[in-house]
């Protein structure tokens, strides 16, 4: 594990904040690349664990960033990472909201929207792939991922039921 400072966290997450078209889930591959592959802040297994904890806790899914910050630099790291990830994009949103209305009828606005949708879909698909590879290190885990995906896609069952089932199977050492 390399040692990273609070400054590294602030710079990386502030930049990522502005790249997160399609939300936090779209930048999971980049988070993984930075935290595991480039920065060596944690192992791939720890990364998958943190994503799971972020899903389990209530609140917006930006919490994965808070967890990475905590792992790297404790309480200060958690707060710095969260503010860095939220600050720049919120500022952009605030300013954009005030100007966007003006261009409602502009033809380029529709093209921009149409162009951004497949970008964000591709990014989120990449996130799903990266997370599944980090989490599915056994046949049991692979089965849980597959069943959860099928149930959540085809039914309206609340996802927490799948998380409860997965927790029981994991506690029973079946994963």
């Amino acid at each position, binding site marked *: 594990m390399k040692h990273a400072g609070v400054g590294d966290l602030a710079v990386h997450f502030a930049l990522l904040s502005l790249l997160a078209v399609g939300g936090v889930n779209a930048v999971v591959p980049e988070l993984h690349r930075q935290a595991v592959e480039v920065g060596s802040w944690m192992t791939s297994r720890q990364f998958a664990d943190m994503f799971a*904890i972020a899903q389990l806790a209530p609140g917006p899914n930006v919490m994965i960033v808070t967890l990475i910050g905590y792992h790297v630099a404790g309480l200060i790291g*958690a707060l710095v990472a*969260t503010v860095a990830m939220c600050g720049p994009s919120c500022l952009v949103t605030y300013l954009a*909201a005030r100007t966007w209305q003006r261009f409602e009828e502009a033809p*380029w606005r529709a093209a921009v929207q*149409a162009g951004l949708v497949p970008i964000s879909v591709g990014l989120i698909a990449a*996130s799903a792939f990266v997370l599944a590879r980090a989490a599915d290190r056994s046949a049991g885990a692979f089965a849980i991922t597959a069943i959860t995906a099928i149930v959540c896609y085809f039914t309206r069952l609340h996802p927490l039921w799948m998380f409860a089932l997965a*927790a029981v199977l994991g506690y029973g050492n079946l994963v």
Partner: protein
Amino acid sequence: MLPNPPEKPPGLAAPPGRMEILRGFLSISVVGFGGVFPWARRLVVEQRRWLSPDEFNEVFAFCQFLPGPNMLNFAVVFGARCGGGLGALAALAGLLAPPVAIVIGLAALYERFGDLPALRGVLAGEAAAAAGLIIAATLKIAEPVFRRRAGPAPYVAVAMFAAVGLARWPLLWVLLIGTPLSIALAWWWRR
């Protein structure tokens, strides 16, 4: 489940004050398991009638289109609309403060007990389920892109997946090159 009952646009409530915004967003952030999107709509449209269903969709589409966490963007736009800059801060504070505190508590537990076999097993199960949930979400958002035969869109989505998920290229470069290209293709296709 049935589609939502037709929501008549009856008198919307008066725009909330900053304390009401803070309280409202606090109430959804502490219960928002698996993300706060459904809870936010329930609060803003169904319970308090601060926005009509159409207004909500417009605001949310705009927020998805901007970079950053979608629901935080929603908090900023909604808060600013009702209470200016301070309204935006009130919404953000309500949305972020409780989950950050909860997740830091969980992180402390994880750093301490993360290697206990029973907890390892539970987390391995949860990580697998979380991956399944995001696969399902991916399939749902990908459907319209692939079903409509929307010109270049499916190719762009697959190329993004390959560049970021398989080749693991740095996101900054992929976006700097891919985004203008995708917008140009969409522009050309629509003409």
